[in-house]
């Protein structure tokens, strides 16, 4: 059992959320060498199916290649003058033709057409050299596709480490048909540095009762609107995967005990027997005969910029949120809804509406987060203000994590499963882990596995 010792990131300088040079360094290190979510198999099922989406601050096209059958990812950029090639958010196309001079590319990325080639170029153009720029590494866990610009990066499964089995069990479970992504993502801006959003989903259960007090108040007045969060007696934990070693992927509100399942059954009962049967079936598939296993976790962040929400319930669609860096003070959020493919329609429809009402652009949760982040972002711009660090010292150095022996026992049993290290529900262990990983990339690490030192990277040092 790991103890929650500090890792040197008990404070984080305000300048890391403000300085343009730090931001540029992140793009060249974190976003150039880590695995990033680039879509899902279900988005591009047939040859020629494509979706446009961002990867870091680059525009890419995820395109199902007819010849190889693979979902491949390309920069959305013509090799001639750099024009944008794919102009739609999604659709089906066997080729893209540039609107500038007419160069044409096929689903395998090959340059297939060059207008007036013989007349203009005289000698044959080296088309192999001028195919689409492809994301060199695309790998999947479940149907979730991740890309990496670094050809030498460790395998995705190694990078995810203990997070991989958690994702395959609770998020994209093949036994439930895998995930079905709804085709249209919501997109909205939060005027704040991307790291504050990422660390929030990785580890910050502490903020819920204050930031989202309006929602808690509402559910007390309106039982029909009840959110499960914070009103139950079950045991809850924060999960740190690859603690102190590899890339830190953090998960929140691991729910242990029968309450969450029983609550889902009660909610499903209002939707009819088909929904009840689904909740039972889903629980059986996920628990896979292990009575002691947690029902679900609620939210998380896969380093660096994929957040998850709504995993906690069969009746809450899975929200996939990408934190797209658009500047030191601006993050674009691309948010999809996904449902278990085998779920009955009545469950799918209900689950998507619940996600829409909660953690989404016009939900009852996100606008209050937005407000706090916007205020913070304004505060880190001040010359003096940016020199004042943020504090992440919660329970750092406290060896005894669980005053309740039952919690300690459960955490010890969980550790043996290889599904991560448990911390109390309210903890800052995952935030410190996030910055340890971030720091290792800024130092030049390729895997997030650079050794932890007692002297974290500080500006001006290398």
């Amino acid at each position: 059992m790991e103890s929650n010792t500090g890792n040197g990131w008990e404070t984080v300088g305000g300048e890391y959320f403000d300085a343009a040079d730090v931001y540029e360094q992140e793009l060249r290190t974190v976003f150039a060498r880590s695995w990033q979510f680039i879509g899902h198999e279900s988005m591009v099922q047939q040859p020629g199916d494509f979706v446009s989406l961002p990867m870091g601050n680059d525009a890419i096209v995820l395109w199902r290649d007819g010849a190889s059958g693979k979902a491949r990812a390309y920069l959305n950029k013509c090799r001639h003058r750099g024009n944008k090639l794919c102009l739609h958010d999604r659709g089906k196309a066997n080729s893209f033709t540039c609107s500038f001079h007419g160069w044409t590319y096929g689903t395998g990325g090959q340059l297939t057409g060059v207008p007036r080639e013989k007349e203009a170029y005289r000698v044959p153009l080296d088309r192999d050299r001028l195919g689409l720029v492809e994301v060199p590494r695309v790998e999947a866990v479940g149907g979730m596709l991740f890309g990496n610009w670094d050809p030498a990066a460790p395998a995705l499964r190694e990078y995810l480490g203990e997070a991989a089995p958690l994702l395959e069990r609770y998020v994209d479970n093949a036994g439930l048909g895998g995930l079905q992504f709804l085709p249209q993502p919501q997109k909205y801006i939060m005027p704040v540095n991307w790291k504050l959003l990422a660390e929030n989903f990785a580890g910050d259960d502490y903020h819920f009762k204050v930031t989202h007090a309006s929602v808690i108040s509402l559910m007390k007045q309106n039982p029909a609107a009840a959110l499960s969060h914070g009103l139950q007696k079950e045991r809850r934990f924060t999960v740190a995967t690859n603690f102190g070693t590899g890339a830190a992927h953090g998960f929140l509100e691991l729910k242990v005990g029968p309450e969450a399942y029983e609550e889902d059954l009660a909610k499903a009962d209002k939707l009819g027997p088909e929904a009840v049967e689904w909740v039972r079936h889903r629980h059986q598939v996920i628990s896979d005969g292990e009575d002691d296993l947690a029902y679900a976790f609620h939210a998380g962040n896969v380093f660096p910029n994929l957040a998850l929400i709504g995993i906690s319930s069969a009746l809450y669609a899975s929200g996939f949120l990408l934190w797209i860096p658009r500047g030191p003070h601006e993050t674009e959020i691309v948010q999809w809804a996904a449902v278990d493919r085998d779920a009955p329609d009545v469950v799918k429809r209900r689950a998507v509406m619940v996600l829409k009402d909660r953690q989404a652009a016009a939900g009852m949760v996100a606008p209050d987060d937005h407000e706090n982040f916007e205020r913070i972002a304004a505060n880190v711009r001040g010359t003096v203000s940016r020199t004042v660090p943020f504090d992440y010292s919660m329970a750092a150095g406290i060896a005894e994590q669980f005053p309740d022996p039952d919690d300690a026992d459960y955490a010890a049993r969980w550790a043996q499963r290889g599904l991560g290290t448990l911390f109390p529900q309210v903890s800052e262990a995952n935030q410190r882990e996030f910055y340890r990983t971030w720091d290792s990339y800024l130092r030049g690490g390729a895997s997030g596995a650079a050794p932890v030192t007692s002297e974290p990277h500080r500006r001006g040092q290398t």
Partner: protein
Amino acid sequence: MSATTKEAAIDLQDAHLLTQALAREAYVLDTNQYDQWLELLAPDVRYLVPIPEWVHGRSGAEEAFGTGNDALAFPYLDETHEGLRLRVARLQTGLAHGEMPPSMTARVVGVALIEQLAKGPAAGTRRYRVVTNFTLHQTRHETRVDVFAGRREDVWSVGDDDGSQVLLGSRTVHLIERVLPRAFSTFF
């Protein structure tokens, strides 16, 4: 002459009542009188804000705004009266940080295209399709002003016992922004 250049005359008093209702709606929302806003909505109102997107292979208006008839969609909002009432109740808890202090907003609603529909939902009422463009300017902090813009496709009913009641029966808000300027708890 084409259908586009011919307009069917509509009852002038109804047209007047509808444009008054549109102005009143913007006014009560800009002044945070949410309860009065809810009173303008029919009990069976549907309030939909779909996601705008460009889909390859669609044409005309659908290329950008879709059909609105997807079996399973993830819209920004798709609300009943109860859903809207809950959102208003949350803003009125005194704990909704995203509207504390309340945003300064200005809704600018363009000239309304008004067409009478076949029949009203109840005896003695008349139903109209009302299309308006709008912008919503929202300030929360010192210098930042966020702007939402789009087109609203409404169905309103006019008339009841005394002939003057105007109610919004349904609204689809086609935002023209692919990336919204902020997470929002405002209404369009």
